[in-house]
């Protein structure tokens, strides 16, 4: 998707966010004080986020999805790569240069117990954006806060309460209200329902969908839960070890996954019918994902891939549309799966 870097001529860029070759490394503590190890959490990711769409980002622990999200809202500095928000280059912007953009992009965090300061009243927490950006104060701020509380389905009379007095689902509504206060264009949702009970998840998912329609929001929706991602997303990107390995419209990805990793992930999800897995010809991914610390050559998935061949160990596949696929269906694999093919050993030429 690197070709998308060329700026569009017409003013309304269909892409709200363009990410090109983004890399994020962390220095890690190593056993030897003289050797600084570097952990590459995001290893060169490119994609675009269309206005008004929901892009789902799935992957397992440590695949870099949360780090990528934090790079996009610039809670992290980028190690390399380019980040364009509505045409403005934010890749190297300082915190003060970012301030006006903070109103336009917001984040909802995973843990509704961790994302609200336990010592502050809810009204004051939701009013933060108004205070920080000098939008409203006093009675006017309180009125706006109560409008927001009403919008996300909270009782506006509860503005004086403390977070501890709310259940997990209600807390997530508070966090959503805070994120929406300044009517942002982009909302990055980092596992917004993972910490919630099943019976509450649907409430929050419906709320997010409704708010998107009402306010024309663009979502980057991060989750490890493939069913949840399918439900909310227009397009889905699958990450593995800091890279996007597959990106496709949601229906296509779930119906005809091309990357063996995507297929394996889908096969690992428990179904809702008893005994369903035995009928599904399972592929259980062996082992754990390798550490992002290890220097990797070739395809990042090759060590766990049942189809891996010599080429996969030597040459990293590019994320691109495969012959015969929908042009919006991108796969980074030398030997992608055909429709309905089980992710067993590759039989032939593949690509």
């Amino acid at each position, binding site marked *: 998707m690197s070709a998308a870097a060329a700026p569009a001529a017409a003013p309304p860029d269909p892409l709200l966010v363009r990410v090109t070759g983004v890399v994020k490394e962390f220095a890690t503590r190593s056993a030897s004080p003289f050797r600084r190890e570097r952990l590459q959490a995001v290893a060169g990711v490119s994609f675009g986020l269309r206005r008004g769409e929901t892009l789902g980002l799935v992957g397992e622990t440590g695949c870099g999805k949360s780090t990528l999200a934090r790079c996009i809202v610039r809670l992290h500095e980028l190690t390399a790569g380019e980040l364009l928000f509505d045409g403005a280059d934010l890749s190297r912007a300082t915190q003060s240069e970012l301030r006006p953009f903070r109103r336009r992009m917001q984040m909802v965090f995973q843990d509704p117990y*961790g994302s609200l300061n*336990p010592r502050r009243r809810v009204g004051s927490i939701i009013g*933060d954006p108004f205070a*920080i950006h000098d939008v409203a104060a006093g009675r006017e701020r*309180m009125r706006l806060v109560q409008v927001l509380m009403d919008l996300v389905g909270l009782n*506006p*009379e509860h503005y*004086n309460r403390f977070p501890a*007095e709310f259940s997990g689902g209600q807390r997530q509504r508070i966090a959503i209200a805070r994120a929406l206060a300044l009517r942002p264009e982009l909302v990055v949702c980092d596992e917004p329902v993972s910490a919630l009970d099943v019976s509450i998840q649907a409430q929050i998912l419906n709320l997010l969908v409704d708010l998107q329609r009402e306010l024309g929001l663009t979502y980057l929706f991060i989750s490890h839960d493939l069913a949840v991602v399918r439900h909310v997303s227009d397009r889905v990107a699958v990450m593995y070890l800091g890279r996007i390995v597959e990106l496709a419209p949601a229906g296509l990805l779930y119906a005809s996954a091309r990357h063996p990793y995507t297929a394996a992930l889908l096969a690992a999800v428990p179904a809702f019918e008893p005994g369903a897995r035995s009928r599904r010809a399972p592929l259980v991914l062996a082992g754990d994902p390798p550490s992002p610390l290890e220097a990797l050559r070739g395809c990042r998935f090759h060590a766990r891939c049942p189809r891996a061949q010599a080429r996969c160990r030597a040459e990293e596949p590019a994320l691109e549309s495969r012959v015969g696929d929908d042009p919006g269906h991108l796969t980074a694999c030398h030997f992608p799966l055909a429709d309905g093919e089980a992710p067993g050993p590759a039989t032939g030429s593949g690509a």
Partner: protein
Amino acid sequence: MTPVAPIRPRGPWRLASERIGRDRAAIAAIATILLAALVAVAAPLFAALTGHGPAEQFIETGLSSNGIPVGPGHEFWLGCDGLGRDVLVRVVYGARISLLVGVLASLLAVVCGAVVGVSAAWYGGTLDALLSRLMDAVLSLPYLLLALALAALVGPSTGISVVVIAFFNWAAVGRVLRGEVLAIREREYVQAARALGAGHARIMFVEILPVVAPTAIVYATLLIPSSIGFEATLSFLGLGVPPPTPSWGNMLADAMAYYKVAWWLLLFPGAALLAITLAFNVLGDSVRDVFDPRFERSVARARGGAA
């Protein structure tokens, strides 16, 4: 839009004070401390009541013919010391010094520790490395030796006592608060504030300080008794409050010459010192329990869907 009802729900601070109210040991400790404070404030009243000034010597009535101090009795309720001074009045005046030095030194230590510890953790990098080493250095000083040297150099005074005690205690507070802030700065609510565009000062004062405040309060409460003890030690060694101003420490020092014949010289200031330090320690323990996040969490969980 529903009209707004003025609800003031129980916040963390309210909850904490309610929990303290249910803790009998804490109530007893608070009562002891309040009593001591009251007595200290009313010290001149005791002097007027007995007609004995705190430094006034009563050679005729206070000492027996061979110079031995008289014991507790009608005129001197808690007896006299070796110079014929009223022990009751001196213990009461000593409470002023002990409380003043204890509270002031603890406050100074906590404020300095908070400023250094919080800035070290928040700004990180070189500043953190520098301030952390400074705290390590202070913590590794042989405090009694240095205190002795310092007091000997500038001469004993109450003000110096406060500064010396604070100087040797702030680093411990700083180190603890630094650790807390290091943990808090990675919390999602701080990240959320950053994502909203909040600046350093706002994050510090709105998000971080209220969260570390309980720790600081617990530390302050626990520092008071040790400061009182430290002051007594300095005075005992003749390096704290200069005579003839009475302090429990120098009263105990004076008692050393007489305790075989005059037990009251040791008992009353000693008991007062013990009572007040015990009270502050008990209170500190209760305050810590009351702010214990585990306790808070279990309550929060149990209240679950109360809202």
